[in-house]
């Protein structure tokens, strides 16, 4: 009984899948799916080297500081960084006084309640505060940005495939639409107010090119602020904001694995030792 029932169920599912396959295959052959413009023109992130690449890579502190400067002077005008607090900047090599000063002088103020009147007010951020958001809410953000809401950047490099390279590629990837694209996909002309960027998933991005000229930021450490350098630095900074514990993790991992290798070797030896009589005599 079980086997007859199983046979019928199996015949039904397998048979119907094969029929579905034939239907699909006929459709596929007679009317091959049209290639999309994203499929043809979207590019994977560029190959770019970072100090934190590889299993033993570490953050380059001066680079993180430069990247933070780019974030502060360029990105933070529109993008929030809500999971990072000023106190976290200690990991970039800033001391307590510097962090206090950075927080105090931050262009955007922290919303608060006036302790006397209870009215909504703002105050200078302190190190314990998270980076204040540039817009009061999503409606304000959309209104100020051609109806697009600038995403929070805290986790950006983990929220995209190959995120560090993605951020770098996106910032340096703006270009005019290739003639080839317009020839094959005349409908895909970049709409007014958007910007063509082959590294963006749907090719047209609301964000205007943020880094447009060399020297847009003046680095304190004398590094030449080319667009390429600034893009790389801010990508490194955002890798740190997304994974601040990266170095701890790798250090702990190395120690754990060395320990486990020794423990496992000992476990193997005791296994062989215990089984010695059984394997030999039998």
């Amino acid at each position, binding site marked *: 009984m*079980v*086997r007859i029932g*199983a*046979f019928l*169920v*199996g*015949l039904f*599912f*397998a*048979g*119907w*899948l*094969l*029929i*579905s*396959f034939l*239907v*699909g*295959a006929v459709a*596929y052959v007679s009317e091959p*799916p049209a290639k999309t413009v994203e499929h043809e023109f979207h590019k994977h992130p560029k190959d770019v080297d970072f100090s934190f690449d590889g*299993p033993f890579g570490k953050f380059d502190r001066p680079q993180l500081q430069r990247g933070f400067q780019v974030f502060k002077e360029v990105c933070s005008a529109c993008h929030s960084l809500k*999971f990072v607090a000023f106190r*976290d900047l200690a990991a970039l090599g800033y001391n307590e006084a510097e962090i206090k000063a950075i927080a105090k002088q931050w262009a955007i103020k922290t919303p608060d309640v006036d302790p006397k009147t209870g009215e909504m007010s703002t105050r200078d951020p302190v190190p314990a505060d998270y980076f204040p958001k540039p817009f009061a809410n999503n409606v304000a953000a959309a209104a100020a940005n051609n109806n697009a809401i600038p*995403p929070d950047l*805290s*986790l950006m490099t*983990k*929220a*995209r*495939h190959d*995120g560090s390279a993605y951020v770098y590629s996106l910032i340096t990837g703006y270009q005019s639409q290739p003639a080839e694209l317009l020839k094959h996909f005349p409908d895909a002309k970049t709409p007014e107010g958007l910007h063509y960027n082959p590294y963006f*998933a749907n090719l047209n991005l609301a964000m205007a090119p943020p880094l447009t000229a060399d020297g847009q930021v003046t680095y304190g450490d004398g590094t030449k602020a080319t667009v390429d350098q600034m893009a790389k630095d801010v990508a490194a900074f955002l890798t740190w904001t*997304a994974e*601040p*514990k990266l170095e*701890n*993790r*790798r250090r*702990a*991992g*190395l120690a*754990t*694995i060395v320990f*486990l*290798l020794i*423990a*496992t070797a000992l*476990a*193997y030896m*005791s*296994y062989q030792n*215990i*089984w010695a009589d*059984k*394997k030999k005599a*039998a």
Partner: protein
Amino acid sequence: MSFPWAEHYTPKHPVMQWIDEKLPLPRLVYNAVGAGYPVPRNLNYFWNFGVLAGLALVIQIVTGVIMAMHYGANTLVAFGTVEQTMRDVNAGWLMRYAHANGASFFFIVVYLHIFRGLFYGSYKAPREMVWLLGLVIFLLMMATAFMGYVLPWGQMSYWGAKVITGLFGAIPVVGEPIQTWLLGGFAPGNASLNRFFSLHFLLPFVIAAVVILHIWALHIPGSSNPTGVEVKGPQDTVPFHPYYTAKDGFGAGVFLILFSILLFFAPNYLGHPDNYIEANPLSTPAHIVPEWYFWPFYAILRAFTVDFFFVPAKLLGVLAMFSAILMLFFLPWLDTSPVRSGNYRPTFKKFFWILIIDVLILGYCGGAPAEEPYVMISQIAGAYYFAHFLIILPLISRFERPLPLPGSITESVLNRQNIKGEQDALPGMGADPQPSNAG
């Protein structure tokens, strides 16, 4: 529940004697995973995965309980509390990554454990109950993993919850009310998140309880072995402790090394980047994919593209996906060959490897976008999956001529240790489907 020659527990220390008189718990442990449990002496490394699955469950419960201390099951804060765990909780990143990757490793070892069971016919009499309870654990694991993936309240959490609960919506008439009832609303929301958290906390302990039943049921006939020939006497077994505790110790070491490599050096490799974007009901991700361990079943779900008369394709897909797992409950009665081990079943072995490749193909297609040619490939692979278990396997058991089995476990061990290939086994020995002198 053991062989007559099993060693007996004799507590030496007066404290242990005192405890054993009042509550024979030490005795229970001794008989379950100590020297009191005789195990076939010829187990290979595939028999390590049961213990490893237990280890994975413990890792999940420990890391999960700690994570729950820092988690807020509310759609307004859930995503943020998970991030806070990663950033501000001492070793919070370790707990979170160990839990997320631990789920993957739990499924890896359980899939290998099932692989072992399928190849060596561990599901056959007298161990049907062990197999059935194992499938119950597998189903509970899938439910737990699914609900756990919703908790961080990222984009894939939200849309995954929407798609999976939407499967119930495919049931005619009562589908939509059931979906609304499951979610506590018309779309995943705060009510869904809260109940998923509650159940995600509860189910692992239910799993632990079924694991106890699984081991209990295993100890009635005793462990199977690679020859599939039942234990005939004391010379065929060794005590679980120290022989297999030592071997499992080594296995656990290898498991932990591989786990650590992923956990410490590529913790997001198996995850989806979209889950680092907070859930947004207004923005649908380009490709909604579940975690990798659901991919083969997801491919079967999506392979049904043509309505069967009045039955919509979506409902067929849902039925097929659930059947793909539920039919395994009938496996002990579908594969009627008295020979257990695939090593002595030449025809079975060929189709078995086709099945493994087939499931890997299904897995690949399930993770790929829902477009051609992946759908067509999943249709062929899905057809084979059902045909294998429901049609091919019963037929093989009927017509296959198995190879001669060794007379006993000891004999097979001796043959392997002496000259290889001189004489593989005694001819003409049938399988021994009777439970040996156990019980």
